């Protein structure tokens, strides 16, 4: 019994120390696989989530940046958010609502925020594109904080899309990124075996 207790506590300690809570995402995204072995960096990522139906969500790390971003957006687009709502935004996760509905999103409780059916996604059509300003301002905010030495790196832009997402939805995101001059980004993929290594092609 003592041995079992020892082992179980050892494992417990291990899992506690390595634990990093799964980021809560409002949509389940089944990413396609590729042979790329580059790992996603721990921090400083700006994730564009695209679900099966092509709804776009946005998530970024860093409370300071998020706060800075939302106060920029608030003054730029007159969203009329209170200080308290902006603080809330800085600790929440991925969002997928048009700007006008952001207030409603902030007022939701956590289980409502996990339900993707509540959200229409961020508009990314060429007319009334809101995704572009969000990403652009987020990068600016992160850059500014980096200059001030608060965050160590600039944002790495990652696109996490479901493998069944129709291409036109992806195309909208790619066009938006190219419009705001984001030419380097990353696609999140699962690992699959490289045939060159396994078969010696």
């Amino acid at each position, binding site marked *: *019994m*003592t041995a*079992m*207790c020892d082992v*179980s*506590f050892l*494992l*417990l300690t291990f*899992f*506690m120390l*390595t*634990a*990093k*809570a*799964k980021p809560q995402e409002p949509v389940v995204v089944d*990413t*396609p*696989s*590729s*042979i*790329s*072995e*580059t*790992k*996603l960096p721990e921090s400083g990522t700006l994730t564009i989530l*695209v679900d099966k139906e092509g709804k776009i969500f946005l998530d970024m790390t860093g409370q300071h940046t998020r706060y800075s971003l939302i106060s920029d957006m608030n003054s730029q687009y007159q969203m009329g958010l209170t200080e308290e709502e902006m603080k809330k935004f800085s600790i929440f996760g991925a969002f997928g609502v048009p700007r006008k509905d952001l207030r409603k999103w902030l007022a939701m409780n956590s289980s409502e925020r996990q339900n993707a059916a509540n959200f229409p996604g961020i508009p990314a059509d060429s007319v009334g594109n809101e995704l572009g300003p969000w990403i652009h301002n987020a990068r600016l905010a992160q850059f500014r904080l980096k200059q001030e030495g608060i965050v160590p790196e600039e944002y790495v832009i*990652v696109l996490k*899309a*479901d*493998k*069944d*997402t*129709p*291409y*036109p*939805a*992806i*195309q909208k995101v*790619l066009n938006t*990124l*190219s*419009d705001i*001059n984001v*030419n*380097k*980004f*990353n*696609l*999140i*993929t*699962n*690992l699959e075996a*490289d*045939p*060159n290594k396994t078969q010696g*092609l």
Partner: protein
Amino acid sequence: MAEIQTADSGARKKGGGKVRSKKLSTRVDLTPMVDLAFLLITFFMLTTTLAKPQIMPVVMPEKKITEEDVVETKESQVLTLLLGADDKVYYYEGITDAKLDSTDFSAEGLRKVILDKKRRVKEEWGDMEREDPKNPGQKKMVSRLNVLIKPTKESRYKNLVDAFDEMKITNVAMYVLLDISEQEEEFIRNPAGGLKFSVEEQIEAIQKTTKKGQ
């Protein structure tokens, strides 16, 4: 939890002459603690993401390209992939009198097509020297093959990633993601009609959209 009893030394067994203290275990019952420990282990195991996801870096060209950025290529060095519905890939070589063929994303399908084209390009034109992106300052030999990837509206995201992946597996140095043209959509619907897409239109399409993956 732990019970430590002091043996009553005064108690004597009937008829027994010797005084023997009762042996009692000083062990603690660990079962509840182990239960709790395993419960916590299970919780942390389930909430932990041990494997970090992989990423595939993509580089697109600037939106505005200058004359200097334009690299001329030969028609016979170009392979166009049209990613269609139901995980099908249509492909044609060059532009003039192009013949449409289709394949799939399996190792026997698209990979063979690309490797075959690459071999033919090498036989005809040889390889070319180019800056090695991994070791700056050094040159390496790369294929002259140019692959244009054009997803149709019916294709899904997986097809795009698979196509990029295939470029990496077959070591194609130059590939571009472009928007599909109406002429090419018509070509898929009616392959016998031939591709009504001139070289000039192709160049214009590239300059207009210019999305280059590398």
